[in-house]
């Protein structure tokens, strides 16, 4: 059987976790990212691989119970072993067969050599090791990855990306054959989490990002984020959803949406579901229903009809509580009497930092800029427009 990452979608992209490779989970400090490496280890235990899990900052008992919280009964696997660099560090005798004091790097090196020879897949908490042993431990981590490479073993690293020196960060990137970034989606508060493959040198793949939830028990579960497209009657919501989606359906009757528009979009590595609402007031219960659990809102307005702006704002208010991010699509810019975006922002009395994007849904002009603006609010850091470390 092949070794895999055990992470949904990722395995479809990289297909396997080949021997001699180092797989790194690069985790934003604000995100609970431990589950990724644990899921990789557990999945491969089930597949019969011999796996070792190195711990330095938490006790072996805590490691076991963290696994168990996800429903992963690692104790029942004979092919599982904890490498305990914790107990002697805090001054307890270790109950584990493999243990060393991390203060004594030479002792650890001897131990790790043995571990790498014995096990197929070894997990290293790279940033914790550096926290305990100092940045010179980077050299050891590099050595272990090289050794693994030369004897056909696999290493899983988790690296919590605190502001370490550039040397450390570059060093980790350099030894990683595959890099998976785990980050947060935030807008005032954390709205969700994503992970994305930044590289995998055994596959020629483009970066793509997946939103996930941590489920206990269960682990990392991918989900497709929902973006709500709302706005007044006739503003062009359905037209927008169709203009931007790879495939879309609308429940329109007599020229108006009576239930919803649904579109699916694959864009810049993201998979997104778009839900368009009806615009007419009699369907407002649907608006509230569709608004639930949306990750962001696109408010479509007809730039030629300022008399509809109050309704637009009212619709926005009914879905953006909890600080959901939103962008405004100033539609029908192809018409001669369309108001410019700045004027719309002024008339709607919107905060200055709300993006108002001029578009023409029927001509398909500017529509992707709307998604870009929303991704900017949600995911990208300044200047980014694809997954980077």
């Amino acid at each position, binding site marked *: 059987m092949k070794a895999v990452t055990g992470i949904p979608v990722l395995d479809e992209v990289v297909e396997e976790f080949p021997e001699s490779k180092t797989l790194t989970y690069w985790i934003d400090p604000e995100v609970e990212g431990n589950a990724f490496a644990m899921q990789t280890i557990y999945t491969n235990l089930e597949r019969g691989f011999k796996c070792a899990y190195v711990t330095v900052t938490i006790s072996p008992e805590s490691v076991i119970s963290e696994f168990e919280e996800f429903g992963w009964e690692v104790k029942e696997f004979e092919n599982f072993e904890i490498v305990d660099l914790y107990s002697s560090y805090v001054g307890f005798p270790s109950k584990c067969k493999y243990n060393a004091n991390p203060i004594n790097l030479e002792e650890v090196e001897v131990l790790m050599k043995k571990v790498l020879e014995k096990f197929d897949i070894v997990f290293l908490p790279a940033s914790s090791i550096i926290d305990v042993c100092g940045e010179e431990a980077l050299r050891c981590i590099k050595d272990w990855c090289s050794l693994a490479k030369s004897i056909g073993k696999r290493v899983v690293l988790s690296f919590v990306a605190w502001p370490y020196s550039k040397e450390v960060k570059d060093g980790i990137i350099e030894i990683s054959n595959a890099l998976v970034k785990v980050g947060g989606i935030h807008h005032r508060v954390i709205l969700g989490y994503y992970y994305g493959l930044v590289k995998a040198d055994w596959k020629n793949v483009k970066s793509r990002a997946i939103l996930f939830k941590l489920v206990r028990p269960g682990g990392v579960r991918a989900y497709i984020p929902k973006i709500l497209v709302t706005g007044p009657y006739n503003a062009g919501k359905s037209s927008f959803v169709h203009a931007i989606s790879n495939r879309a359906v609308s429940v329109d009757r007599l020229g108006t949406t*009576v239930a919803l528009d649904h579109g699916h979009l694959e864009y810049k590595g993201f998979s997104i579901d778009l839900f368009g609402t009806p615009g007419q007031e009699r369907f407002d219960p649907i608006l509230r229903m569709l608004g639930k659990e949306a990750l962001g809102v696109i408010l479509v307005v007809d730039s030629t009809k300022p008399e509809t702006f109050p309704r637009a704002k009212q619709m926005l208010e009914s879905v953006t509580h909890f600080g959901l991010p939103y962008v405004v699509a100033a539609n029908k810019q192809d018409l001669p009497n369309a108001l410019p975006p700045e004027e719309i922002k002024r008339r709607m009395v919107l905060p200055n930092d709300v993006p108002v994007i001029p578009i023409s849904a029927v001509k398909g002009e500017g529509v992707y800029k709307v998604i870009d603006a929303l991704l900017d609010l949600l995911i990208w850091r300044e200047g980014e427009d694809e997954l980077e470390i």
Partner: protein
Amino acid sequence: MSLRSELEEVLKELKATGDIEASAIVSRDGLLIAADISSNVNAEAFAAMSATMLGAAETAMSELGKGLPDRVVVESSDGKIVATGAGDRALLVVMTSPKANLGLILLQLGKASKKVEELLG
């Protein structure tokens, strides 16, 4: 007779079948055309949501590559709602008592929806 009163006549006949507590003729885009509903019900919302229900069901069916559904039936212990198309522009929806005989109701509803279709034709 005005169109409106002719449509209301259709609803009245439906009610005579017994077990039908409320009924409405609704445009496909969810506007109330005619109704026989007690005044304490929000008839406009009922009309809009009936159009949503039938519209969504029709789209769901056609997404599966099937033809149009004949009707949408919603059952609860307090009664049933049945919505059925009445031509391209309208639909007919009734609310029944919990113990209503569905077969009988569907039969009557079929006839009534034909009439509505002709009247609005």
